[in-house]
């Protein structure tokens, strides 16, 4: 079954430039329904108010980090099955382990390329 590219995707990053870059890269692979949030708390509010098929989030944000957002998502009965990709400059082993233990679907280290983004999206949506 092909990926439903009409799904809503939430991208979360405190750098507006980064949101713009990810939005454009998603547009190039035909994901056009993209919403943005600038920290974990903003993202959680949007997730609870909407219907998203994929979350792509940075880690290092305040007041709620990407890891805390992931934990909140996995603890929420309605949101817990939503695929969650962490896109972050945090590349230490302990970060990857902590994210995996919190239930991350995949992990992309910045700086990344479009191919990596596409590949991870396909994997978490079950087509990789």
């Amino acid at each position, binding site marked *: 079954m092909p990926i439903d590219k009409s799904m809503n995707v939430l991208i979360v*990053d405190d*750098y507006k*430039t*980064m949101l*713009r*870059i990810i939005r*454009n*890269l998603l*547009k*190039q692979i035909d994901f056009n329904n993209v919403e943005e949030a600038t920290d974990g708390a903003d993202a959680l509010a949007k997730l609870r108010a909407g219907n998203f098929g994929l979350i792509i989030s940075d*880690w*290092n944000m305040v007041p709620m*980090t990407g*890891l*805390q957002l992931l934990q909140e998502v996995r603890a929420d009965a309605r949101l817990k099955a939503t695929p969650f990709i962490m896109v972050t*400059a*945090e*590349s*230490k*082993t*302990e*970060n*990857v*382990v*902590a994210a*995996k233990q919190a239930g991350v679907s*995949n*992990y*992309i*280290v*910045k*700086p*990344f*390329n*479009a191919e*990596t983004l596409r590949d991870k999206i396909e994997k978490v949506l079950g087509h990789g």
Partner: protein
Amino acid sequence: MVDHAGDALAERLASIRASYPGSEPDMVADVVRAVLTTMSGDLSAKETSVLAEVEELGKTIASAKAEIAALRVDDITEAHIPFATDELDAIVEHTATATNAILSSCETLDDVAGGLSGESAAKLQDATTRIYEACSFQDITGQRITKVVGTLKAIEAKVAQIVATFGGSSPQIRPNVAAVDSEAALLNGPQHPAVAMDQSDIDRLLASFE
């Protein structure tokens, strides 16, 4: 002999303390010198040598204190560090402005590519993809600069602390202590490329959980 020397030292120290409640090390050095004079003949050559070294040590400490007190710590905390952090903030702001200008042009090219077909469209889109990827440098640069600013603030706090301890009064700079919890240790920002894990390392690590 020991009792006599001890009594003389105690007497002179008590006298100095009574006269000068805030006695400084150079005063103590004077006391030692005076005591050494009164004790001539009562001490062995070795003991005299040790006391002379103690006197020198007192002078060195007094000199170091004077030098630290003379440091223009205000320049560091009120001018140099704020100037450096302002400059770094300006770098982030200017690179963000430039990056957004590049992205705007790139989005225009993307729109143009959408109206084309075939090889030209593919080439154009490939080029814009590379530009988008390259523009993510701004995020990494910003995070690295934030780390440098944090380091500068830590240095500022340490300098103020040292001067306050050894050189008298100085402005108290409170270190910028982030909330200490288990996740705080995980927020390190970009690592140096020479030691950082790359995407393939992370993929292997993730795969090891499967």
